[in-house]
């Protein structure tokens, strides 16, 4: 990274701090606007004796929900299979992402010089989006 030596970065203070303050104000504005125009949902009180028809988790767990649903198709392997494979499979995916730097040991950083990692990453993002939308409508 030789080019970094001749390009001087911007000083932390005041340039960067000022920019950060602007961003913090924008975040506050966004949150207040969201909280005002789309209030936090207020459902009915929990009733342990009546199960609602459709139980959906928060949107960021929809991928997990949909994967568990898809794993139900594996019941030909036996009654144990769907849940165990669904849960363990997700555990393995999380473990792979967790230990990614220890699996992908190359030192190349430019995206176009490591096509396999980037293609896998894009496929991962696309499947995340598809499974989330699918989970929302299924």
């Amino acid at each position, binding site marked *: *990274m030789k080019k*970094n030596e001749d*390009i*001087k*970065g*911007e*000083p*932390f*203070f005041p340039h*960067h701090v000022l920019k*950060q303050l602007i*961003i*913090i104000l924008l*975040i506050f504005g*966004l*949150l*207040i606007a*969201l*909280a*005002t125009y789309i*209030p*936090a949902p*207020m*459902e*009915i*009180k*929990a*009733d*342990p004796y009546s*199960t*609602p028809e459709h*139980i959906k*988790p*928060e*949107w*960021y*767990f929809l991928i997990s929900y949909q994967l*568990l649903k898809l794993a139900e198709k594996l019941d030909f392997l036996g009654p144990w299979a769907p*849940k*165990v494979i*669904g849960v*363990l499979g997700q*555990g393995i995916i*999380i473990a792979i992402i*967790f*230990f*990614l*730097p*220890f699996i*992908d*040991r*190359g030192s*190349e*950083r*430019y*995206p176009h010089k*490591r096509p396999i*990692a*980037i293609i896998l*990453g894009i496929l991962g993002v696309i499947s995340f989006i598809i499974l989330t939308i699918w989970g929302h409508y299924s």
Partner: protein
Amino acid sequence: MDIEEKGSRKRDIEKRTLFRELFNIFSLTGFLYGPLDERLRFRDALEKQLKKTTPHYRFFIERNFLACLGGITFILFLIQLLTGVLLLMYYRPTVAEAYESIVEITNNIHFGWLIRGMHHWAANVMIITVILHILRVFAVGAYKPPRDFNWSTGMTLLLLTFTFGFSGYLLPWSQISYWATTVGTDSIGAIPFIGEALKYFVRGGPQVSQLALTRFFALHVVILPGVTFIFLGLHFLMIRRQGISDPL
């Protein structure tokens, strides 16, 4: 001599800026140290920190948005702490009263709706920014050694964020949160060998009930923030130690 004179005038102008004044006020806190300030000059330490440069990114969007995602997530976490403490003042973690206290916060407490709404929305926005932050780090290969360890502390923070979301979802004790938690904890039971025991431990019994609410409350309000602080400290210390990865 002429040049020298110009230089000293320039320095005088520099000295008079608002930021210079602010800096002087900050450096006064060195007096609070007392004798310690002799050994570790507060003023020097502060000056060194403030003069540190942030990397120069070539693209507008990277400079102003992509490179800030981690910082934005941290700001959102601080907002969650603040609004969370405020909610804590009125929330009652019992099966009989939890829902009523949320209704009270929303309808009767001054600005309760705003604090609750901000807590709700900051949680959701935080998930988005944390995922975008990971994607950026992945795209520019900033997770490569020597920053491989920091990727793992970051992933731990991601899992903690999800656990925050999962445990916080039960606290309003509404119909959807009760049943989503029932189904969610049910899938813990599918883990071979330890699953059933773990499920019983998380719920505090065979069903989601008062004990589950107490446990989720303790997790959400005490345990998770504590653990998150430890990992945030590690995450930031490593960035300080290794520096921000060079822009591509």
